[in-house]
């Protein structure tokens, strides 16, 4: 066991919304060729057959007012380019075509789906990616929308769902929070505030109200050193007035919310941990996005271990059933700890020898393996979660000195 792992007392996961790896971090390839970003030559064809190359011209807000499609059939089009034949190959060629349908068939607007942020536009995310560890191969769990993808982060499965429909727990699969509480361990799911609430409504609000708290409590827990062993943080999902009459902006980065507010939120979470010396050296922070939100990424999602469920053709709306045997589109994922060397890049599918594949089932898999090593003796997990890669091996024996780790000025 590494000294970093030996010192680990807390895992914190911050899950943002709906941005692809290339959209947020693709520009970093120009800074570090090991990062599997964009060369600038990647392209899609638009509905007129014209080539639309990726462009470093993404805007913080305003160019994605029409929410890009990220429901199962839309993502199927994005991955397979519209091919419907048996044995079709994924080519990541249908993003512009997919967005065309969302923009009232406006060809020019449809090109925006290929835009990515230029170097320097996202100082928080890119500093964290280059100062700590960035994953080249972290994928959303399902080629579909938010709710079912987030379910994988909590349960290691979506119980057969590929949509945003309400679902119920019919199997003895426990959420990672219930596992922790049942074993006398500590765990909290911090949502931003009551107006924003949580995306884990039906199952967790029903079954485990005691694991919920608000973001203010997270900040207080960091300050007082009383953070639980496992924390999951939800950003603010909507613009709304604050209790004092002020303006609270959505910080989830879901299109078309201002990406800069999400940057500030990520920096706030980081600083809360960073500025408590005891917490800083005993915490691993994972920043990850739930799914790609319909935005372009160039990496073909790999196959994966099925979770035992099958979504029927009527539910996928593609005319095909889905056996949860392929991951969704790649998303940004960054791990932060002083026990991680600067500039760590975890290779993904681009490296056939050393590449590793992570997905949201990696989250309960990691938390369970770290805090509940005997869990499988008496309880069930999906085979998907059991086979998911865990990420705490990134913690090394060497802790970086305080002056070697950044702080954000908010």
């Amino acid at each position: 066991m590494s000294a970093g792992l030996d010192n680990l007392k807390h895992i914190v996961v911050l899950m943002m919304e709906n941005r692809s790896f290339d959209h947020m971090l693709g520009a970093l390839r120009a800074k570090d060729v090991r990062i599997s970003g964009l060369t600038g030559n990647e392209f899609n064809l638009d509905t007129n057959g014209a080539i639309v190359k990726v462009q470093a011209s993404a805007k913080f807000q305003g160019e994605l007012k029409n929410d890009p499609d990220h429901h199962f059939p839309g993502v199927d089009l994005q991955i397979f380019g519209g091919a419907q034949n048996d044995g079709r190959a994924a080519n990541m060629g249908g993003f512009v075509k997919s967005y065309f349908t969302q923009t009232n068939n406006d060809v020019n607007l449809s090109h925006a789906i290929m835009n990515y942020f230029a170097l320097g536009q996202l100082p928080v995310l890119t500093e964290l990616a280059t100062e700590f560890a960035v994953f080249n191969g972290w994928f959303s769990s399902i080629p579909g929308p938010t709710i079912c993808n987030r379910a994988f982060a909590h349960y290691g499965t979506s119980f057969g769902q590929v949509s945003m429909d309400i679902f119920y727990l019919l199997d003895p699969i426990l959420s990672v929070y219930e596992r922790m509480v049942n074993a006398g361990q500590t765990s909290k799911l911090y949502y931003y505030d009551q107006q924003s609430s949580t995306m884990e409504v039906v199952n967790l609000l029903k079954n485990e109200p005691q694991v919920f708290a608000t973001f203010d409590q997270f900040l207080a827990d960091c300050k007082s050193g009383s953070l639980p062993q496992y924390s999951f943080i939800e950003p603010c999902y909507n613009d709304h007035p604050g209790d004092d009459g002020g303006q609270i902006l959505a910080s989830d980065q879901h299109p078309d919310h201002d990406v800069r507010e999400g940057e500030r939120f990520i920096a706030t979470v980081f600083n809360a941990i960073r500025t408590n010396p005891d917490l800083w050296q005993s915490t691993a922070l994972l920043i990850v996005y739930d799914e790609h939100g319909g935005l372009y990424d160039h990496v073909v999602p790999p196959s994966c271990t099925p979770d035992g469920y099958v979504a029927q053709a009527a539910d996928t709306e593609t005319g095909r059933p889905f056996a949860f045997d392929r991951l969704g589109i790649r998303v940004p994922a960054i791990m932060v700890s002083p026990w991680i060397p600067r500039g760590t890049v975890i290779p993904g599918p681009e490296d056939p020898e050393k590449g590793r594949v992570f997905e949201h089932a990696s989250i309960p898999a990691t938390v369970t393996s770290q805090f509940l090593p005997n869990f499988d003796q008496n309880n069930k997990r999906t085979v998907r979660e059991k086979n998911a890669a865990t990420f705490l091996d990134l913690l090394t024996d060497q802790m970086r000195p305080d002056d070697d780790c950044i702080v954000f000025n908010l």
Partner: protein
Amino acid sequence: MPPRVVPVPKTPKESYNPERPASSLLRAQILHLHEALKWHVAEIQAALEINPRRLFSEREVSNYAKRVSRILHPQAAKRQKK
């Protein structure tokens, strides 16, 4: 030497727009909240159907008190050790 400080730009006030049409995600979220509320109503209704005057033992009383307290003060359930 102090750690390197990275400035984070402020978000312009004009970005605030609570009149923005809600995304499909937010509209799904309120359906989930609505569903959760129905579950709580069913829980409250079931508790109201119990006649407390017909509870006589300490076991019955404590079970009923727990049931009602879980609704009125869910935060107290399964308090965690810190």
